[in-house]
């Protein structure tokens, strides 16, 4: 596939690997923010191409992993009602709630459907006027404009039977929270390329300056990731801290202005809890008051939920780069992709599932 195959080229990855080995003189810890990058790193064995001095830690950029347990339980509660068609991206279906996941709700006979796009959910609402269609709107800045567009489009079509359960989160406040943790080991970031496709990278400039940390906007293929690591290591070795754009074939400094305008039309920025991490100030989106008719939380008024996390799961520490998945006693024992205790074992972009599938751990 054009623009994928070239960036998986073996001789280019070898060149970059050798360049990094020649460049490095000290130990450096680099975090890739995005779960998609974690998946690529494990799938393509990128750590094996790096010198021992470079340690990669895996970030919280996995919506499946950080969507709060309470929100999963709300989704389960809303999906378990007559006259509701509950729609979601496939990877949210198996995230464990306190008691059930969405697939269990479907197995119990309720109408839970996977969709490819939030617009599919809007079309479903138009065809099923007697039912209420709820879309589980999770994700980072990459996905938020699509979900905003679904709301705007439902309003334009005059639909009164469509709403979203909104749990959007934002990358820059998470970076700030990670770097504010006194125990952090992170010395440079690979920022999430597709988030920056929408948002651009102006927001990262003050973070890089304030925390003296290199931030490299990075793509998702092996050549992209190795080039991102090369640029980050070069900055670290030269004692520089700047924002660089490795993924310039799709990321513009200003991002996508139309998509950003839509975000500010539909959403307000609010404090959001992150599963395993806690509340991060101004780290997410909620629907603006003028779109509250499309807010599933207001429509369904789910209250008196009592949430219960697994006491064995160390997902919070994994998501902050403080521990690696195989340092968890439950890893591959009581926690597997078939029976996950925590969300990072569910999605292919969760660090625990990526380690389970691709990494040989002795």
């Amino acid at each position, binding site marked *: 596939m*054009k623009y*994928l195959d070239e960036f998986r080229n073996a001789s*280019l990855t070898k060149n970059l690997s050798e360049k990094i080995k020649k460049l490095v003189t000290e130990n450096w810890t680099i975090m890739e923010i995005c779960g998609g990058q974690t998946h690529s790193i494990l799938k393509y064995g990128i750590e094996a191409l790096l010198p021992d001095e470079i340690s990669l830690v895996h970030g919280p950029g996995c919506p499946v992993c950080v969507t709060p347990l309470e929100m999963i339980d709300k989704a389960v509660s809303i999906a378990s009602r007559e006259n509701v068609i509950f729609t979601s991206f496939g990877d949210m279906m198996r995230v464990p709630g306190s008691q059930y996941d969405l697939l269990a709700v479907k197995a119990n006979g309720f109408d839970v459907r996977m969709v490819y796009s939030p617009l599919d959910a809007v079309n479903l609402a138009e065809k099923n006027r007697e039912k209420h269609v709820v879309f589980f709107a999770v*994700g980072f800045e990459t996905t938020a404009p699509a979900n905003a567009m679904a709301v705007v489009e439902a309003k*334009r079509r005059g639909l009164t039977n469509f709403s979203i359960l909104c749990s959007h989160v934002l990358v820059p406040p998470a970076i700030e929270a990670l770097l504010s943790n006194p125990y952090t080991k992170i010395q440079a970031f690979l920022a999430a390329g597709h988030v920056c496709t929408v948002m651009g990278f102006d927001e990262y400039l003050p973070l890089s300056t304030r925390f003296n940390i290199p931030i490299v906007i990075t793509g998702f293929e092996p050549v992209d990731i190795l080039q991102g690591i090369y640029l980050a290591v070069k900055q670290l070795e030269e004692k520089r801290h700047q924002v660089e754009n490795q993924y*310039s074939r799709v990321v513009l400094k200003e991002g996508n202005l139309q998509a950003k305008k839509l975000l500010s039309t539909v959403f307000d920025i609010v404090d959001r809890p992150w599963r395993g991490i806690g509340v991060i100030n101004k780290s997410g989106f909620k629907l603006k008051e003028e779109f509250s008719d499309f807010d599933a939380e207001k429509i369904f008024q789910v209250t008196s939920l009592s949430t219960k996390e697994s006491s064995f799961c160390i997902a919070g520490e994994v998501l902050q780069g403080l521990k690696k998945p195989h340092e968890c006693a439950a890893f591959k024992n009581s926690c597997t992709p078939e029976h996950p205790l925590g969300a990072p074992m569910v999605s292919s972009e969760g660090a625990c599932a990526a380690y389970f599938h691709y990494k040989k751990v002795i």
Partner: protein
Amino acid sequence: MCLSIPGKVISIDNSNPDLKMGKVSFSGVIKEICLQWLPDVQIGEYVLAHVGFALSKIDEKDAEETLSVLKKMGDLE
């Protein structure tokens, strides 16, 4: 979840000014993709698509330059 893939725009439908759609080919798999946020996109150009929406055009010249710099990096050894 931020997975986005490159595809080639093969048709554009401007009939709804609020929801510009188009057919995009992903190595022969054709899907309806919203092109609303790319006002100047042309047939034949490559876009990066995510959950049914094109987020960005792919800059062909930039991609070629990156690959060429990386190839040269190896040749200089």
